[in-house]
């Protein structure tokens, strides 16, 4: 059985914003960051990552600029906008409350009266 988890809807955006909160990055950099930090435990196709980036660019959460990589390649670097920062914070709180609620319900055990 595959031990990798499919990404929940909407979580990819949150993870990408989180990744960008460490500083600007290009798409490939973000992909490897996600792989490393989930120890390969999350699956998403690279194309989904780009879709998330462009979607959030359209919503003004991230902005992009052409830059040069360490190996002098041209790449599109994404960074958080102010709105992106605020959005990330709000989403993180929501996520934490949501996760806590769900896990507290899931940890209930039947009691014998």
């Amino acid at each position, binding site marked *: 059985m595959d031990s990798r988890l499919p990404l929940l809807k909407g979580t990819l955006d949150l993870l990408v914003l989180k990744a960008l909160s460490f500083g600007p990055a*290009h*798409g*490939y950099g973000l*992909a*490897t960051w996600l792989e490393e930090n989930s120890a390969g435990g999350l699956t998403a*196709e*690279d*194309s*989904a990552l*780009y*879709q998330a980036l*462009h*979607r959030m*660019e*359209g919503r003004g959460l991230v902005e992009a600029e052409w830059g040069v*990589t360490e*190996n002098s*390649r*041209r*790449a*599109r670097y994404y960074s958080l906008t102010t709105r992106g920062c605020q959005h990330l914070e709000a989403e993180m709180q929501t996520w934490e409350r949501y996760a806590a609620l769900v896990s507290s319900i899931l940890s209930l055990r039947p009691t014998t009266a």
Partner: protein
Amino acid sequence: MLDYRRIFRLRLGRRAELRAELDEELTTHIELRVDELVARGMGREEAMREARKRFGDFDEAKRELYSSVRRREVRLRWGRMLDSVGRDVRLAFRRMVKSPGFAVVSISILGLAISLTTVMFTLVDGVLLRPLPFPEPERLVSLESVGEGSDDSYAYVSMANWHDWRAGTTTLAATGISEQGRISVGIGGDAFRVTGTSVGGDFFQVFQPTLMAGRPLTMEDGQAINQVTVLASSFATRHFGSPDDALGRTLTISGRPYEVVGVVDEHTAHPERSDLWVAFHVAAGNGAARNNINFQAFGRLKEGVDVDRARSELDAVASGIRATDPEGAFHSHGVGVVPLQQALVSDVADTLWLLMLAVVAVLFVACANLAGLGLAGARRRTGEVSLRLALGCGRRQVIRQLLVEYLAIAAIGGALGLTLAWTVGDLILGPMALELPRGTAVRLDLRVALFTAGLTIGAGLLAGIAPAVRISRSADLTGGSRRHLRVGRSLPGGTLVAIEVALALAILIGGGLLLRSLQVVAARDLGYDPAGVVVVEVDLNGEEYRSGTLAVEYWRTLLDNLEQHPGVQSAAVANWIPTGDLGTGFVALPHDPEPDFGASYRVVSEGFFETLEIAVLRGRAFDPSDGPGTERVALVNRALADRAWPGSNPIGQRIASPSMEAWLYDGQAPWLSVIGVVDDIRHDGYESDNEPELYVLYRQVPRWTRGMNVVVRGLESERATLSTQVGEAIRASNPALAVETSRLDDRVANLLQERVLTQRILAGFGVTALLLMCLGVYGLVAHAVSQRTREIAVRAALGARSTGLLGLILGGAGRVIGVGTAIGLAVAYGLTGLLDSLLIDVPATDPATFLAAAALLVTVGMLAALIPSVRAARMDPSEALRGE
């Protein structure tokens, strides 16, 4: 590969650029992944496959991403544009506040011109452009009689002919006929005069009006014994409370009971302003019946059939009728199949388009005016604009910003214009809508408002483009140095003012021609005197009047009674009076049984000629000795006498009226002895011509007297109350009658009303254009003077006389006005042909009118130029030079 793309990046369009960037981003991603996998020891081929696999569907992703990128770009551009336009608008308003004079003048000028244009468009739109309010109106046609000549068509048809057309057509899905008139209707105990339409055939299937209750009239209703009627919604609501409540109620029409079976939404019904519809019996007929041309016929084309096919089919039917029934071949040389919209408004289309053209010219003058003001102000703007150019604004941006200023002014002007049209536009719209066919469709609504919005933008651009380009150009060239702005000897904006002069003159000439024609027409001799005459149409519906004997008795008593009234000078009755309906029929002469002219047939009482003051030219009028038992006598008018007996004495000649009298005498009209000749009368008012007329005495044709018009001439002193007196006298004679009195002079004036209104509107446009032109001339000269202050001052200081200076300045203005006048005369000469159909007795190139209009315009224009010129010539040179 990347470099290759980069080289071409700038040359590719923005779309291609976006696509290339996306391509690069994704390709870089794959390449980076491959590099890393290879670094970890994977083979290049395998690494490539792995990278692709991890990416997912590369092409699909690219397509999706590209479309989202493009959408974002478009949004961004719009946002950016709105931003900068917003900035321009704010700037524009700041400028308006800074120089409110310019703004107020511009806005007023545009507001006035736009409101006039909006009002005219409302009329044109309602009458000419809006589709008719029936389902699939493009399939509706009017069927017309065609005479011997191909252009001799007549909007009325005979029932007998139409009956055969209907039987022979395969191209019409439905066809019906109708006849309209004022009728008396009894509801409960009350009687009313209403507009009623009698219909035959499938009239309601042709027009398919929206039913509010009940059912439409059908062909069968006309043949049924129980008579039924369909009411207009407002009529039903007024008399019965609601459409549903009207169903099943009974009205008395022409003395007979009619049950209400349906109520239609009158806005979707034909004809407009009809209160009710009844069905009549449709019967075939031959011979003379074919020549009884009283009905209007309409048809609905079958799906996919065009007008030409229907026409050629019906033409064949008509020629069949002519072949089999030569007796009835009059006006049966074909069938005119005319699209209904065209048939309804053809009379007024020219007039409306002409007025529309004139008002657009007024709008052009207004725009030229604004542009002129802008040009005059150009010098003041140059410095500011140069600065902006120096700061790196592109010239296009500068032009756009200047245009936005004009658009902002136009927007306010447009709003003002729309408000004016909405509030006071009714002063023109109200009376015009009453005069025009389809007038009930005239309304200022969103459709018109959208037109006005478009117009406003157009006007703003038109007014702004010249100043914007000029300012940006001069600012560009001089780089901020005002002194080098080219002023030149030619007046800036002179061309614009010349255009204004030309347009104003063309409109003035048009208005002048109409005025001349109106004067000529209104000075014509009607042949009778309508002033102080009151008319009442009375129908004797009761069965007892059928034979006519009692009807004659009724009229005699009524006339005796009326003549007893203190206010009445004389009274008479007539079947057809001037300004009303008129029946014209064939006549026969002993030497010519079928002459090529007919005559209208008036049944009158003795006092008719005295009451209307129609002169008896020869012989005598009817008198009490003429009666049912004596010889049949007749009077003819001069036109009939001239045609029937040219050069010989008509008195004692014989004439017959087969169309009108054959039915009274078992098919053989009797000879009538001519006892007198009376003067011609213009039946349809000043614009109509004199036609042959035959008069007979009502006592000798009692069966013609059930429906008559009572005409009463009042004494000078009693005219104010005459209508009331007559109304009361008639009501007293028969309380069941609905009495509707009207003044004959009003009716004559109403017939001229369309012409009067057209003339006033065009004259109004002309005066507006003239005033705008004066403003333009004034501005032009004032500006020129201000620019040439130094030159004028030097000349004055060197001893030039002030009259010489005046001549110098006025000369410039005179040249502009002269050129404009010449162009205007030429334009008017070319265009007044459009007026031809409106001009009676005045040629479209009437030199007197052309000269008078030009003289008026030049005089007023030079006066406008004189004011600033005099001021300049009088200035103190030393002060002026110090001021520089």
